[in-house]
């Protein structure tokens, strides 16, 4: 995060354990400079085993449909396409992780699941699926193949963390880290994007992911708006 010309301290303590959770986030190359990051061949276990129902058709049609309704998608510049592909891969990871959480809850592996938490997981999964559909619309309009796999290294890390989840609190903590990573990644990507529609999409997704963060903080018994300025220190790097 850039240093803006005023104080950023609102007296709220950040949680050190969440600053560099993945060991893959923060301080890496700018998202906009990424080469194509839609990893293929990732393993399928807990983190992404469920409901990554993306289409894999390629093409360059200017019009695509998303789960949020029909939308017109314009062809984005090449740098924007690289960012879109990385963003889509993160959305695949989020959809898969929330799906795995729902599966675990359904199998009774998380203990009693409060109704609000079940509702949140269902809604968040749907939101990320809609985001994935949007990005894949941009990607296909740019003549590339839709992204259906998560970032390999990040997925491995999430899988390892997911294996430790034993209850709803643990699942909420993992979801919080995913959402913080997603919102920070979009925040970092926005200044690198050129296409206006891509900028508004990334911004609109940053908003919803940051709002997911607030809900999870509240559920976990923490203040829902802990930062004065949103930062990029948890932004994901490719790989």
């Amino acid at each position, binding site marked *: 995060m850039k240093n803006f010309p005023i104080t950023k301290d*609102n007296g709220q303590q950040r949680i050190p354990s969440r600053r560099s959770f993945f060991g893959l986030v923060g301080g890496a190359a700018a998202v906009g400079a990424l080469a194509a990051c839609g990893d293929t061949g990732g393993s399928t276990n807990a983190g992404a085993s469920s409901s990554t129902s993306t289409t894999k058709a390629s093409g360059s049609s200017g019009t695509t449909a998303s789960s*949020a309704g029909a939308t017109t998608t314009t062809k984005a510049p090449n740098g924007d396409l690289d960012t879109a592909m990385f963003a889509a891969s993160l959305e695949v990871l989020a959809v898969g992780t929330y799906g795995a959480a729902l599966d675990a809850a359904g199998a009774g592996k998380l203990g009693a699941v409060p*109704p609000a938490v079940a509702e949140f997981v269902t809604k968040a999964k749907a939101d990320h699926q809609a985001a994935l559909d949007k990005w894949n619309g941009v990607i296909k309009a740019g003549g590339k193949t839709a992204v259906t796999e998560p970032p390999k290294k990040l997925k491995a890390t999430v899988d390892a963390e997911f294996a430790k989840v034993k209850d709803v609190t643990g699942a909420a903590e993992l979801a919080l880290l995913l959402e913080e990573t997603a919102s920070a990644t979009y925040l970092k990507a926005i200044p690198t994007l050129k296409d206006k529609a891509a900028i508004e999409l990334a911004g*609109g997704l940053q908003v919803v992911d940051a709002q997911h963060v607030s809900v999870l903080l509240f559920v976990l018994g923490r203040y829902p708006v802990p930062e*004065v300025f949103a930062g990029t220190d948890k932004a994901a790097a490719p790989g």
Partner: protein
Amino acid sequence: MDSPPGEKDRIMLNEPMLEVLLEESSDLHADAMRDTRPSVARLEEWRRDVGTSLPTTEQVSAMSTARAEASSSLAKSLAAAGLLTGGIAAVLLGVVASPAAADKPLDIQILQTATSLELLAIAAYEAALGLPFIADGNAVVKKFAETTKSQHMQHREAFAAQTKALGGTPQTEPNAKYLAIVEMEKPKLLTPADVVKLAATLEEVATDTYLKNLSLLTDKDSIELTASIMGVECQHLATLRAVGALLAGGDEGIALIAIPTDVAKLPAAAGSVATPKPFEEPDMASPPAEGAVK
């Protein structure tokens, strides 16, 4: 929780007045198009002349001059007419806002408008904290109002500092359009739910305005700052939506407005009320020049 705050709970507009404003906007739009036509024509001429080859330094300079002229004229006219968020305006701005150089006049207006919204929010939360049912009411709601006011003060400082950094004059007055609405609503603020609904509207306007501005700004630092602050305003909005829903749930819901809360007792809707859409769209954005220094 039968009436969660959402789109249907936004502040109601005076529809007859809106029709008058729309008619005025239409007239202003026509004037703006007339004033801008020569500048846009000059840009189109340059595009034909330059073709697909790389332009010379002289051509870039000339294009920048024409672009700045067109952009400034168009932005001022359309923004004054409240049409800058419209489709036609977006297309026209796409024509004139090519990256030949940073569009500082428009960037400055955007930052001044952002500052005006922050000043408005500060005033609104200050007023809320003066209400007895907030000052002496639910501890979490009071803390939220205090903390959020403080955060908006720091956002105001940041936007003002960035305005100065671009050579502009920082805005010192709250957004006049929404200040009038706040003043109109003040006598109707009789319960915490009324305050939460008004605050949510202001936070949504700020969030949507900053979201829209991300694609209008040309200065990278200003984009980063705006995106960063947007990421906090939207959390204020999410929190207010959740609190509003719990307030609507009566005593049982109010008891759950606590940190930590009793998660097991939260109604299912608490898990989704804060994020009604899969992605935010800037449908409540203020035009870039709405809060510009005159």
